């Protein structure tokens, strides 16, 4: 069972667009020191990178956002691109969602493959515009389009708040083993 303890930062601003935020994973907790590293999406032992392009237009949908995942930088490049219209990503690309406004890595399900969290700070939730959401893409031998990808927002069970306009949930992300159970939380 996945245990996702959520610590979220709600960014409230008036009239100022928050800048996308760079996030790096925290140091491994003691429980994790004997385990493979937290974030290798495809388990090949080579460092992977996720790069947000929050202003990416998805076909004609302006600023819906995209994330590039690189499995190898040199020599050559192995990469994939994900948007909210990708089959393995829940929700739908809408104008101004800014999917990829924040990205972070963890291993939430303890399977040894790194998992990718993508912030969608301007996602609308119901009638709440720019309430924000988070997509979780689980790693696998094929990389992050693994099975059981998740979509979280403040109206989902387990997230201790409700979605309101301009909450911008997901504008900043960090991961770590906050509860010491050996798997990562965000």
């Amino acid at each position, binding site marked *: 069972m996945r245990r996702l303890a959520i610590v979220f930062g709600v960014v409230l601003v008036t009239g100022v667009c928050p800048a996308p935020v760079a996030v790096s994973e925290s140091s491994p907790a003691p429980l994790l020191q004997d385990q493979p590293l*937290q974030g290798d*999406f495809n388990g090949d032992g080579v460092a992977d990178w996720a790069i947000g*392009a929050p202003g990416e237009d998805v076909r004609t949908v302006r600023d819906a956002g995209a994330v590039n995942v690189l499995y190898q*930088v040199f020599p050559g490049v192995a*990469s994939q691109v994900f948007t909210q219209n990708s089959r393995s990503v829940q929700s739908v690309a809408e104008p101004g969602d800014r999917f990829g406004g924040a990205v972070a890595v963890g291993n939430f399900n303890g399977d040894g493959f790194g998992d990718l969290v993508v912030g969608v700070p301007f996602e609308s939730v119901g009638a709440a515009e720019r309430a924000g959401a988070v997509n979780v893409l689980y790693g696998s031998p094929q990389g992050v389009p693994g099975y059981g990808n998740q979509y979280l927002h403040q109206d989902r069970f387990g997230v201790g708040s409700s979605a309101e306009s301009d909450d911008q949930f997901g504008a900043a992300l960090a991961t770590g083993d906050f509860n010491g159970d050996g798997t990562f939380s965000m």
Partner: protein
Amino acid sequence: MIDAGLVNAVYDDWPNFGHDVPRKLRFTQPGPGGPERGDRFGFALTSTGGSAAAVAVGSPGEDINAARVVADIGSISWLWGSTDFQSEGGGGLWSPGIWHTQNTLGGGSSSEAGDHFGGALTSSGLH
């Protein structure tokens, strides 16, 4: 050059390096086109962590798309870490001159105005 961006490396033993060859402490964008106004090199950073860690640097304001100027397509560059203090550049971070835009990645997306590629970054870390 306004907002071209700069990355500073600060080592915990600085300025007493304990090594003969001083390490490079300031980095500007290697490409595409080098540092230009508004690139915002260093707007986002991530590191693999660990020994001789590598760092990725986002330049979401990058405008150079091959030979053309397209506003804010964005680019990323890498700095490699080294423990080889006998090398030409000394130990620590150095710039291998590796960079990418969405066009050079060839991953199914291309560089368009306002994409802000590199506005957010994360790394899996090293084994």
